């Protein structure tokens, strides 16, 4: 669907008629919404994936008179089968916030001045050229996100890596699922989960690792509850560092000390081996054992470098290694009783029970994120509970296209759409498809996200283009990176829909078209690619992010690589992109099919979606009809010997509390969208700090008292919540990060997993003072 200028003007007229109609009938009061003069019969329903989290629910958006007016769950979408969460149901309201950017802005004498978008794009191109000429190609960078539609990320990668020749391409998904990627790569050799959401209907036991699904993946959570309700024996076990809504719904909830999940996972494996619950046949045929480096550091210093090295070992060495993790020892580290650890091991070990493990940020935002991902895979590999319906170690994502755009397109410094920049074969393939000389693609990765912002602060990067993300709220140790971005000589371009702390530091703001205002694709947590049509007109001069990139690339002389026409470029990009994945291990569905269906899972081979990878019964890429972990050269999955190591910073006498950060159901990430949705803002208008009742008593604070939370890096003053929605144990506080008025990331620490380079937002030391 294309929308012409005439359509747009007509829709504007219709809008004003609607408002006029409303003022003409003041007698009718609808407190809920302003009614247009259109009746509900005028609604046209069209499918789209939801704009928010990585679940990838199918929505039906109702359009009436060129405006989105209603939402239903898409009953044809197997993800959510017609049910959404409150964000999904109200998602279309995000299009109509009154402070939408409808024109470009350029900073002149410190003030943002409205500027025609073509002129703003000229300026962006000339500043990029200038930086490249003066300080080299690696002084410019693009920072995108898992909310990039697939064509956005693909175009950015082709433009920066293929045409300009810099690997300064990163995405906020580095802060979100990089450990999941390295976890998958180190264990299986290929990224992304092997299972699918049908596991939820088939499992007998669910174990959630540091994962508040009731709020973060509500649709999957309620699908889990429906399974439990329909069968009397299903159990949900919540392993967590803080009591949440998910804990309340779970059959059992075990609170563990931050970072000690490493010890618990190893202790579970110890028990499985001790009680002969190992699936010997599976392990002997499909598993090999590896030992990596230890004492690997935390990355808090600039220019930190680390490279892991796997050393092959045998089962006996693994058994020996696990002797340090008896349930009794793990109890001392974790605070979870040995009895409960044995109970968990018995659930995983019972050959009659199908077990699915879920995790998201608790395991990924972890200074040993790769390790804990490996360790949970170890449990499933020891018991052979993998790649069959209901048996699934399942890493969920937080953004609608973290998988689609970041993991699959590879918008990270070391990645190409297929393979890594370090490999000649991958560079050759990319150069061929992109129509650029192979020498264009730099074989050396540059900066991962944290280091990229450090380089911006140090001045090695002086031009950064930020699209669809809000790093001036989300970067850990935020103050350093905000000050860095504001330094003289830095030029920041921000493609955004609403004013945010990031657009506040911009030199150029480009107004973006959002979600159903443009055509695009997302890729969800279960390898499902989902197409959305343009359903409503773009406001003002707003422009699709892909088109912004193409416009600037052409201005820099890359017309040949970006020849596409405005009415078909999304389809053309898709057709070019899927050439990268044309093997049975990763084949994507054709454009036409994606338009028709509510999402299609890859590998899409011989007209069929692959529900479970690595199992020949379901996956045609396997050698025979049994398990085949073809991602590794030995066709085996690797069990890693990963020890417990303490976090980068722990509470001490001066800073006696753990600080944990995260989200709430109503708000998505930094709230730049959900806070403009009236019903969501009115439910959770501001952030707060959850404090345990006993700690509150000691501090002498009650609900809504103000406390100052300070760390070695910064402080924030906010209201106290005691016995609220979540309840941290004694010695921990929790702060939702959505509220730009309380920048909790000025307090957090920029320590990261040395393998994945993903920061840990869940653990640092703070002190509290009553204000």
């Amino acid at each position, binding site marked *: 669907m294309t929308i012409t200028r005439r359509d747009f003007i007509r829709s504007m007229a219709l809008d004003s008629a609607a408002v006029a109609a409303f003022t003409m009938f003041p007698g009718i009061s609808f407190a809920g919404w302003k009614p247009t003069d259109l009746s509900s019969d005028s609604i046209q329903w069209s499918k789209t994936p939801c704009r928010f989290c990585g679940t990838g629910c199918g929505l039906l958006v109702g359009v009436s008179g060129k405006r989105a007016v209603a939402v239903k769950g898409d009953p044809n979408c197997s993800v959510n089968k017609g049910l959404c969460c409150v964000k999904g149901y109200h998602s279309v309201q995000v299009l109509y916030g009154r402070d939408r950017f409808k024109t470009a802005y350029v900073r002149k004498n410190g003030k943002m001045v409205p500027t025609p978008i073509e002129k703003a794009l000229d300026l962006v191109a000339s500043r990029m050229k200038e930086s490249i000429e003066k300080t080299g190609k690696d002084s410019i960078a693009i920072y995108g996100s898992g909310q990039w539609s697939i064509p956005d990320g693909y175009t950015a990668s082709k433009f920066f890596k293929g045409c300009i020749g810099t690997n300064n391409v990163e995405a906020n998904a580095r802060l979100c699922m990089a450990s999941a990627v390295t976890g998958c790569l180190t264990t299986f050799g290929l990224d992304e989960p092997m299972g699918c959401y049908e596991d939820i209907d088939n499992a007998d036991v669910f174990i959630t690792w540091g994962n508040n699904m009731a709020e973060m993946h509500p649709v999957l959570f*309620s699908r889990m509850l429906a399974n439990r309700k329909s069968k009397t024996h299903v159990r949900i076990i919540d392993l967590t560092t803080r009591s949440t809504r998910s804990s309340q719904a779970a059959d059992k909830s075990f609170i563990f000390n931050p970072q000690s999940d490493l010890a618990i996972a190893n202790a579970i494996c110890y028990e499985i081996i001790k009680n002969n619950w190992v699936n010997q046949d599976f392990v002997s045929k499909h598993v090999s054992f590896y030992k990596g480096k230890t004492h690997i550091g935390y990355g808090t210093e600039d220019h930190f470098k680390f490279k892991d090295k796997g050393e092959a070992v045998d089962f006996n060495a693994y058994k020996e290694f696990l002797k340090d993790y008896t349930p009794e020892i793990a109890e001392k580290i974790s605070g979870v009783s040995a009895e409960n650890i044995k109970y968990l091991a018995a659930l995983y070990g019972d050959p009659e029970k199908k077990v699915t493990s879920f995790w998201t940020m608790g395991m990924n935002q972890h200074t040993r994120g790769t390790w804990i991902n490996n360790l949970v895979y170890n449990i499933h590999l020891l018991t052979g509970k993998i790649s069959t319906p209901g048996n699934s170690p399942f890493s969920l994502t937080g953004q609608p296209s973290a998988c689609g755009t970041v993991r699959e397109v590879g918008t990270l410094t070391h990645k190409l759409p297929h393979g890594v920049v370090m490999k000649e074969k991958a560079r050759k393939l990319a150069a061929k498809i992109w129509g650029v000389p192979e020498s264009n693609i730099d074989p050396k990765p540059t900066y991962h996200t944290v280091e990229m912002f450090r380089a911006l602060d140090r001045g090695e990067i002086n031009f950064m283009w930020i699209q669809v993300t809000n790093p001036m709220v989300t970067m850990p140790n935020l103050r350093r990176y905000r000050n860095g971005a504001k330094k003289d000589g830095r030029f920041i371009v921000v493609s955004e829909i609403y004013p945010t702390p990031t657009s506040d530091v911009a030199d150029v703001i480009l107004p973006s078209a959002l979600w159903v205002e443009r055509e695009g694709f997302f890729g969800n947590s279960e390898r499902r690619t989902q197409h959305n049509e343009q359903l409503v007109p773009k406001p003002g001069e707003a422009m699709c992010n892909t088109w912004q990139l193409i416009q600037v690339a052409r201005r820099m002389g890359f017309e040949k690589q970006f020849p596409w026409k405005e009415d078909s470029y999304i389809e053309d990009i898709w057709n070019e992109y899927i050439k990268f994945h044309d093997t049975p291990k990763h084949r994507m569905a054709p454009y036409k099919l994606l338009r028709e269906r509510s999402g299609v899972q890859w590998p899409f081979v011989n007209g069929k979606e692959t529900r479970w990878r690595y199992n020949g019964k379901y996956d045609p890429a396997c050698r025979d009809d049994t398990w085949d972990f073809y991602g590794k050269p030995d066709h085996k999955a690797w069990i890693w010997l990963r020890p417990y190591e303490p976090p980068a910073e722990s509470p001490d006498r001066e800073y006696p509390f753990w600080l944990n950060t995260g989200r709430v159901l109503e708000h998505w990430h930094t709230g730049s969208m959900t806070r403009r949705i009236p019903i969501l803002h009115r439910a959770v208008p501001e952030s707060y700090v959850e404090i345990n009742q006993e700690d509150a008593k000691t501090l002498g604070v009650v609900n809504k008292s103000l406390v100052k939370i300070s760390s070695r890096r910064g402080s924030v003053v906010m209201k106290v919540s005691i016995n609220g929605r979540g309840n941290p144990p004694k010695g921990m506080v929790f702060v939702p990060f959505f509220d730009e008025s309380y920048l909790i990331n000025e307090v957090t620490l920029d320590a990261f997993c040395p393998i994945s380079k993903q920061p840990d937002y869940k653990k640092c030391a703070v002190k509290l003072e009553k204000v």
Partner: protein
Amino acid sequence: MGKQGQKIGKLFFLFVVISVIALPVIILQAFFVNTDNALAKVNKAETADFDHKAKQLFGTYNGTTPAYMEGNSTDRTLDYYYSLRVYPGSPPFIPHDLADGKGAGYECLSCHERGGFVQAMNRFTPVTPHPQNTSCRQCHIKMVTKTLFKENDWVSVRPPKLGRSALPGAPPPIAHALQMRENCIACHVGPGTVVPIRVEHPMRGNCRQCHLPEETKALFTRNPK
């Protein structure tokens, strides 16, 4: 003859009344011997249409007492009903107080599954049409403020008109989408309902014998191109 006839008539009427009361009880017992299994079947139903869920709907119907069905002690107006929503069919927000920790499990359903009078709120509880979904606060949230972060220019369509019968006196079509609102009696019957949409003849039970959803506005055409 006349008197005799009346007597037989009375007896027959009594028999009918007893049957009407006894039958649902018998059916009810047959259906709900194993509630879990019955629910399992409903929850597993892939298709959400009436043809597959009707058994559950009749189950709810049978479980509702005649007295409750005819109850009429609500002050809920349609305006109030829509004031809790942002477009026709959006999940309403929670208009009453509740402890923040609650709502991940079955607490909401203890009132909203079957309805009844709530002393604390001095009113009858509205009944949810989709009690099979138990993670209530996934979609229904509580407002704690009236302020906004930023203004929003949201508008939506008019709510559907009531009583649009095709012929004078004919049963009106179903004015809303049926997804998650298949269970007619939850919202259209009983003392907790909104007055203008309360039905006058709840005892008939098989609502969709007369009231049909409108799947399309288009008319029949032969061999549509």
